């Protein structure tokens, strides 16, 4: 039954992805999902945003692509951070982005500015994949180098938003290309 569910989801996701007219490599998506999860383990949100002792869900928002958000849901199913279960949702600009704990702007979001402005004074960890995102004060930039995914950090942008990034994360970050 579980296998059938997985198979159905995979077929559904593949159809969604293909219908978006954008070929997404499933392996690449899995690696990025792992990054979103692992990066979040080294971030501290203010207590008002995420209670250290509570168990409310953490909301990972994926901008503008239902197929990707479905794929991330599958990859991060049953994952939680400090007892906060991860929920993945697809969002558009019209949604209340301040409710997100993490806002992920995939590669196809070529103009990240409106999204970044929507969360500028809120403790939302922004993760993006374009140079424009990083230049416009996006916090964590995922990029590909030599067939591997690396990340660069804009610590100032994170601090301005009230987020604390642990030293280990800063130590592991690369310089942006």
């Amino acid at each position, binding site marked *: 039954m579980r296998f059938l569910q997985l198979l159905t989801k995979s077929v559904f996701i593949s159809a969604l992805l293909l219908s978006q007219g954008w070929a997404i*490599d*499933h*392996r*690449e998506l*899995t*690696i990025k*999902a*792992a*990054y979103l*999860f*692992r*990066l979040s383990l*080294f971030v501290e949100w203010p207590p008002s945003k995420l209670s250290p002792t509570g168990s409310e869900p953490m909301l990972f928002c994926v901008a503008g692509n239902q197929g990707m958000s479905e794929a991330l849901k599958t*990859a*991060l199913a049953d*994952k939680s951070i400090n007892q906060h279960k991860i929920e993945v949702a697809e969002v558009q600009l019209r949604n209340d982005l301040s409710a997100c704990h993490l806002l992920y702007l995939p590669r196809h979001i070529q103009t990240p500015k409106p999204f970044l402005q929507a969360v500028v004074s809120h403790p939302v960890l922004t993760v993006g994949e374009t140079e424009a995102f990083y230049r416009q004060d996006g916090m964590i930039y995922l990029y*590909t*180098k*030599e*067939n*591997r*995914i*690396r990340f660069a950090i804009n610590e100032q942008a994170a601090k301005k938003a009230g987020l604390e990034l642990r030293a280990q*994360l800063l130590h*592991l970050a*690369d310089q942006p290309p």
Partner: protein
Amino acid sequence: MKGKTIKNLASCLFALFSLHESALASEQLSCDTIAENDIVDLDLSELGKVPVFMSANQKATCTRQAAGIVTVISGQEIRNMGARDLVDVLQLVPGFSFGIDTSNVVGLGIRGIQAHEGKVAVFIDGINLNEHRFGTTQFGNHFPVEQIDRIEIIRGPGSIIHGNFAEMGVINIISKSAAQIDGVKVTGEYGRFERGESRKVTELVAGKKWDDWEVTLSGKYGLAHRSDRIYHDAVGQSFDMADSNELESGMVNLGVKYKDIDFRFLADDYSVDSRDGFAATMTEQDRHLTNRFTTYAANLNYQHDFTEAIQLDLNAQFSRQNPWERTRKYFDGRPSVLREQVFVDFYKFNAKTTFASDEGNYVVLGNSFSFDKFDIRVSEPGGLNAPLPTFSDYTAYAEASYAFPWVTMLAGLRFDAYNEYGTNLAPRFALTKDFGRFHFKGLYSEAFRIPTGGNYQKNVEYNLILPENEQIDQVNPERTYTAEIELGYELLDNLDLTINLFDIRSKNIILYQVDKTRNNADYYINAAGQNTRGIETGLRYNAKDWGYLELDYSFYQSTRNTADKYKIITTQNQQIHDRLNIGFPTHKVTLNAHAIITPSFSINPTLIFVSDRYGYNGDLLTQHKPAWVANVYFRYQNLLTKGLDVGLGIYDIFNERFEYVQPYNGGHPALPGPSREIMLKLSYQY
């Protein structure tokens, strides 16, 4: 006594050092078969190493799961240890041993068996560097090290995929890509023995990627001396190697890649000067000999990924070689005399298809056609002046691997049809399993060595001086049957132990002979067989930020030897050691430790111990005592400015004065190797 005390003290320091320092196990650079389900569980530092796109070939290959006993040495490790050349690198590989062939040419032996002549295949970026006359590869100030990304070594047969020359092993040198170089790096080395200059080497590595284009260019020019010691031949003559036995090498390696098309050009010009002579006696006092090896090779590869699971490789290779070009030179200024010159043109066309799944199951189907054309331009007096036949080979091979729940099985078969040597089949089977902390491999391979044009030429020349009723046949292909077992266990998260057992049986071994009754005329025969068996162990400790440690031990014994040439026999014709082959130590221990003192400064000691070896000095059997060769390399990166690296190496700290013992009875006394050496290395990357 004092020397022994110092040696023991230094050994203890090495041991203490290794307790403090931690080791970086060689990265699995050539593959990654982490299942997608497991990716989400990797930590951040591990995620940065996971390749995004896996070609079908990559899915089919993995050090831990590869169906072979594999050693991967990264370019970073090579530069950390201050390797002067490939001899320094390969001395650390279990079961590998270097010995003199003849006339200052040093070759490789593996697991107690002489492998220099056509039994270990050496590749640089897919181009085979074995010379096609006799199949040899020459070591010592030959191969550049700065452009190396990694060396993948199959310690065992590799004939299925790599064909002839891969009977005992495969050494695959892979250069850095344009993206990895991304600029220009210039390196200079200068070294001195106790008595004179040891080496002057300069290397250049350049690479750039523009959109779909990638260009790499590397070059090396180096002059070195094999040793600074006195060589004594079997009849009491001697000469000073500090003034002679030079090794001169130049190599250019150009790579151009555009999307799926990869072009490579390689030019190699290696000269070995010698006065030690061919066998027991050195050259006459008024002269020296130069053996020159040149290769000009081009390789065109087209790789197309139909899907993530299906990859097609089309390949065309051409090389023109002029190996063992022998020139006699005089000290008094008389003109040189060219004694022998043979050109070999090699052509090969290869097509390979790989079907691979994400889990690493794969099928490889390939076929190729190749031929060698020989052109004897100059031959020794009495030598062959008639053309040799063209030697051609059609090959078809297949290999498949499937992961069952309880074990991964591999089966492969290679079929060759040679125009001169008939047909040949070589199968391979393997069972591998990764249980998490524990892994297991069981392997059986048949491999071969086909006689080369040089073997053919020598026998034709020998028959020219023999009466008709004593004529000899051409030699037949040699076959090897190898069984290997590997057991590996992760003792701790950063500590890996592997143990390999091997059993090698060779049949119809191609044996070099000299007829002393006919003016030392040389020729080849097939001897019945030579078998060895042994164990190799490796301990790897990786402490990531602190460094790494690698400790290896290898042991072999001879279990059958029908060739007197490889036996240890006294002048009274008594075999005194039936478990040992000439030239090879029973035991070898190596230690390579790397300590990161600061992010810019590191220290890398290495230690090689070999047990006693036997050799010949003319007809006299000689015993060479155990040797401890210790080196240390200090490296400072980004000194004063980013990109400027400085290194200082001290080699053979105890002044053991290692000797290259001839691994067969050719009468050649052991050739002195380097004595204590200091080398300074500067490199700048911009």
